[in-house]
């Protein structure tokens, strides 16, 4: 299935703009060093953390704990709260539960060997003598760099899985849940997860010496993306109280909120609230603002998931195309359609509430 020529042009144009955005942290560092006269690369620290602000040392154990096990605990606790308050609308059926649990547990065992092999074998082979060559980058510069590198790359990875029909079925599992919440936050086809570009990009930047910045940025990113998937709509007070509207205006353009991300998981775009054809941002929503791929309505969709969902088997959802669905007419079946209803692609301009 070929993609529309207008869409192809739009993608090309946005990739060129992205190259400029990727270069912004470098331009900021050049400006900083030009005006301060600092030349930290002449006497680089052994680790980036050596030159980081001291107050970070106090919160470092907490941040490391969150990265190691804290987010698993948060996901389980928040998920239990959502379930207890009936926020899954009785749609968390046993077939869906199986998919969510497999997608949550299996990558915890399958991904570490892949990450370790990439970090310990592939990177030293591809970038010899380059370990820790950028430890001189200031903490703030590293954070700016990692935030843009990691999140803009994930934006593109995500957007292309919606806009290129050949990629859609790898991402479909994340959209097949008819509910929002912690249960489905990690629901992904494993092939989608294992080829997540930003994981390897950020690993490479850590290998080059930006590990301390990455540690902090990834915690903030995880908090934002988890809370955007939650069925606890923490952003509603920002829309309800007039005094908070200026904060809401900034917030909803800067980061993914439950409202904008729930819209992305809606099962229709026809009601003016749901927008599965856009709102691709993960940590930052600003990419959707810049590339005009988002809508902001401050409303929540009536229903989630896919109109053409056939409740496919857990193994097909987790491991397609290695395992196929037996459900007739399913996108995940042997001779199923590439895209069930229409191509979930770009088709709109940014709308403001």
């Amino acid at each position: 299935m070929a993609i529309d020529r207008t869409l192809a042009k739009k993608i090309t144009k946005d990739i060129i703009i992205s190259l400029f955005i990727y270069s912004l942290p470098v331009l900021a560092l050049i400006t900083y060093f030009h005006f301060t006269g600092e030349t930290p690369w002449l006497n680089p620290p052994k680790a980036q953390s050596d030159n980081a602000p001291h107050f970070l040392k106090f919160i470092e154990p907490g941040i490391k704990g969150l990265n190691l096990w804290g987010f698993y605990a948060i996901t389980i606790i928040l998920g239990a709260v959502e379930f207890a308050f009936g926020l899954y609308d009785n749609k968390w059926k046993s077939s869906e539960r199986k998919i969510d649990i497999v997608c949550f547990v299996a990558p915890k065992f399958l991904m570490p060997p892949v990450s370790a092999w990439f970090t310990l074998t592939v990177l030293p082979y591809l970038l010899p003598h380059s370990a820790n060559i950028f430890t001189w980058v200031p903490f703030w510069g590293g954070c700016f760099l990692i935030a843009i590198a990691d999140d803009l790359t994930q934006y593109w990875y995500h957007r292309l899985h919606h806009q290129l029909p050949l990629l859609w079925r790898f991402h479909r599992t994340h959209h097949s849940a008819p509910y929002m919440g912690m249960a489905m936050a990690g629901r992904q086809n494993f092939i989608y997860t294992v080829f997540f570009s930003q994981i390897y990009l950020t690993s490479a930047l850590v290998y080059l010496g930006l590990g301390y910045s990455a540690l902090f940025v990834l915690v903030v990113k995880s908090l934002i993306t988890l809370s955007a998937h939650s069925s606890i709509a923490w952003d509603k007070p920002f829309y309800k109280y007039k005094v908070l509207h200026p904060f809401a205006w900034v917030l909803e353009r800067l980061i993914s909120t439950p409202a904008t991300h729930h819209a992305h998981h809606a099962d229709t775009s026809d009601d003016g609230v749901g927008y599965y054809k856009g709102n691709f941002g993960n940590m930052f929503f600003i990419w959707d603002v810049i590339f005009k791929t988002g809508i902001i309505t401050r409303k929540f969709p009536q229903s989630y998931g896919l109109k053409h969902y056939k409740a496919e088997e857990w193994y097909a959802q987790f491991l397609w195309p290695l395992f196929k669905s037996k459900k007739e007419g399913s996108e995940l079946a042997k001779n199923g359609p590439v895209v069930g209803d229409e191509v979930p692609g770009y088709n709109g301009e940014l709308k403001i509430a």
Partner: protein
Amino acid sequence: MITLQDVVILAKKIAISIAAIIIPLVVLGGGLYLIKQLIH
């Protein structure tokens, strides 16, 4: 059962993933390397 068509799709997907790693890495890594070379 995986088909030839699946293999082609997988290959294209992997190629896109690799491009999405290399392009920003070249811009950012190359940029940081240039800072070192250009500013004295």
